[in-house]
């Protein structure tokens, strides 16, 4: 029997394949390379993998003016996916820089990089998903990789705890997503996004219930309230470079995916999901910001801040217009850089102090480590949406999208949330600069800090992106616009 296998467009898959190749090399390195070299080899190939994947994604972006379905219509080759892949590769790249300095151990280090690359590949794949099955598989692909690297610092109780929590709640969300997919499949008989949109009866209860469950699954990944509760625990417990990667890449993936799924598969149900997303956005903003107010642990605080940013970006999706779409895509660029950068600084401080970073032991850091301090300052300002960082333009776009949707109340909520957020973002600056360690009688960890060139390079790159995206709005928004053109509004 001759089976007509589908044509495989290798270029479409090139980012994933580069990363998988990198992962494979790392895995082999874990076995073949002598232990002392594993760290370097693993990091180098992960680095190379992310670079190559990013370049390929750029090529895909360049060559995919029109979106085409590939490999049996399972995935789509379009600029949205490529854009997402670039962001993920960028985050991954930064995460590798952070990891290299942070992960000094040799056991499982190659596996670590392999899994990091695998997770990146999964995300890239997920962003190309064009049916419910690839959606589910892609989601699980990167989730499983992440579960593992969350728990990879097994000597730390918190790392294991975070891994287990992530696994259980993540699987719970996946199960909901799966059941929702099944219901949608049942209601329309299709799993392909565009086919679902074509076949859907927007008033079908089954379809809507399925949509609700899919939203739960996606909202979980984006850590939107009330599906956010894993976030602080996992972010705090996971190794900091992993947290950095997760907070940037996972969120980017989940939000772009949400945009794609909702726009491609459920455009007719927009009257429902826009409202629901707006409410979820408000809930996320409220929960994230309020809880962050009282945090002392910086990682945890940043975790809550990522929840609130999920709220901001959900506003862009809820706005359901082209402005919101490109606003979201633009927002992700500085957001990911700031996020990785901020966690990178935390990682540096963590290594210096050998204990979890709190607002108290950040004291004086701004003066002791001028570069990291200034960078953290910039990241915090970016999170808070101050000008001179891309975070400002991102928020500007998000609010503009809400205005275009005539949801002024949503703008006001966003504004109020921003206001609250200032307290804790600037609280970090306050902790770093306004108090001196002398005042607090804090004992420094002793000795000169290890030279962390790669980490500093990573932080510097993040700063460049954070600040650069403010000045280079035009080219970036143009890219975002092209990427968002995939979706029809």
């Amino acid at each position, binding site marked *: 029997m001759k089976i007509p296998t589908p044509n495989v467009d290798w270029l479409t898959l090139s980012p994933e394949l580069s990363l998988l190749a990198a992962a494979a090399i790392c895995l082999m390195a874990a076995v073949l390379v002598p232990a002392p070299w594993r760290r370097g080899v693993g990091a180098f190939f992960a680095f190379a993998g992310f670079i190559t994947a990013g370049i390929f994604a750029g090529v895909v972006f360049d060559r995919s003016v029109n979106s085409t379905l590939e490999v049996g219509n399972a995935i789509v080759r379009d600029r949205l996916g490529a854009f997402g892949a670039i962001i993920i590769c960028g985050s991954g790249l930064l995460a590798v820089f952070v990891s290299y300095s942070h992960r000094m151990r040799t056991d499982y280090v190659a596996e670590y990089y392999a899994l990091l690359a695998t997770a990146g590949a999964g995300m890239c794949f997920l962003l190309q998903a064009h049916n419910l099955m690839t959606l*589910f598989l892609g989601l699980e692909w990167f989730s499983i990789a992440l579960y593992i690297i969350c728990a990879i610092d097994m000597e730390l*109780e918190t790392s294991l705890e975070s891994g287990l929590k992530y696994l259980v709640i993540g699987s719970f969300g996946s*199960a909901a997503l799966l059941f929702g997919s099944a219901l949608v499949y049942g209601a329309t008989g299709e799993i392909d996004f565009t086919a679902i949109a074509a076949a859907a009866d927007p008033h079908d209860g089954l379809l809507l219930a399925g949509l609700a469950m899919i939203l739960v699954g996606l909202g979980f990944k984006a850590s939107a309230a009330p599906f956010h509760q894993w976030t602080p625990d996992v972010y705090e417990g996971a190794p900091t470079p992993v947290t950095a990667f997760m907070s940037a890449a996972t969120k980017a993936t989940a939000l772009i995916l949400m945009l794609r799924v909702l726009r491609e598969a459920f455009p007719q149900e927009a009257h429902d999901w826009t409202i629901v997303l707006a409410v979820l956005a408000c809930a996320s903003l409220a929960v994230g910001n309020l809880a962050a107010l009282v945090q002392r642990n910086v990682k945890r605080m940043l975790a809550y801040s990522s929840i609130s940013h999920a709220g901001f970006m959900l506003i862009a999706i809820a706005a359901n217009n082209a402005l919101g779409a490109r606003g979201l895509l633009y927002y992700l660029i500085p957001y990911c850089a700031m996020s990785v950068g901020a966690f990178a600084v935390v990682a540096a401080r963590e290594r210096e102090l050998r204990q979890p970073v709190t607002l108290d032991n950040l004291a004086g850091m701004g003066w002791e480590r001028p570069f990291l301090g200034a960078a953290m300052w910039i990241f915090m300002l970016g999170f808070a949406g101050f000008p001179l960082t891309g975070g400002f333009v991102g928020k500007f776009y998000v609010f503009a999208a809400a205005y275009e949707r005539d949801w002024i109340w949503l703008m006001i909520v966003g504004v109020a949330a921003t206001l609250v957020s200032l307290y804790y973002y600037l609280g970090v600056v306050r902790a770093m600069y306004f108090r001196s360690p002398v005042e607090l009688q804090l004992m420094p960890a002793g000795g000169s800090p290890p030279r962390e060139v790669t980490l500093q390079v990573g932080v510097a790159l993040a700063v460049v992106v954070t600040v650069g995206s403010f000045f280079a709005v035009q080219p970036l928004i143009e890219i975002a616009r092209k990427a968002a053109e995939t979706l029809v509004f």
Partner: protein
Amino acid sequence: MLGPDITWYLAISAILFSIGVLGVLLRRSPLIVLLSLEIMLNGGNLALIAFSRQTGEGTGQVFAIAVMAVAASEVVVGLGLIVAMSRRRLPLDVDRLRSLRG
């Protein structure tokens, strides 16, 4: 279709899903939580296969098989975690995993 209307199959699937939810929400042993997650996934699988039968095309079944693989993966990772925890003499009780909170 053999047996009753698809609705009944879906009812079974919904019950399974709910039982799985209950298990996750109620049980403190991570092992049983993992098992409950399996039940949830199986509820989804049943729905997929029922719908596949309903529409008469095999996608749902393929989906179900993929889900099985994924479920297996989750179990592997979950069990690995549990083993690692027990090695660390951590309590196998999700209610006592509270060092991360607030």
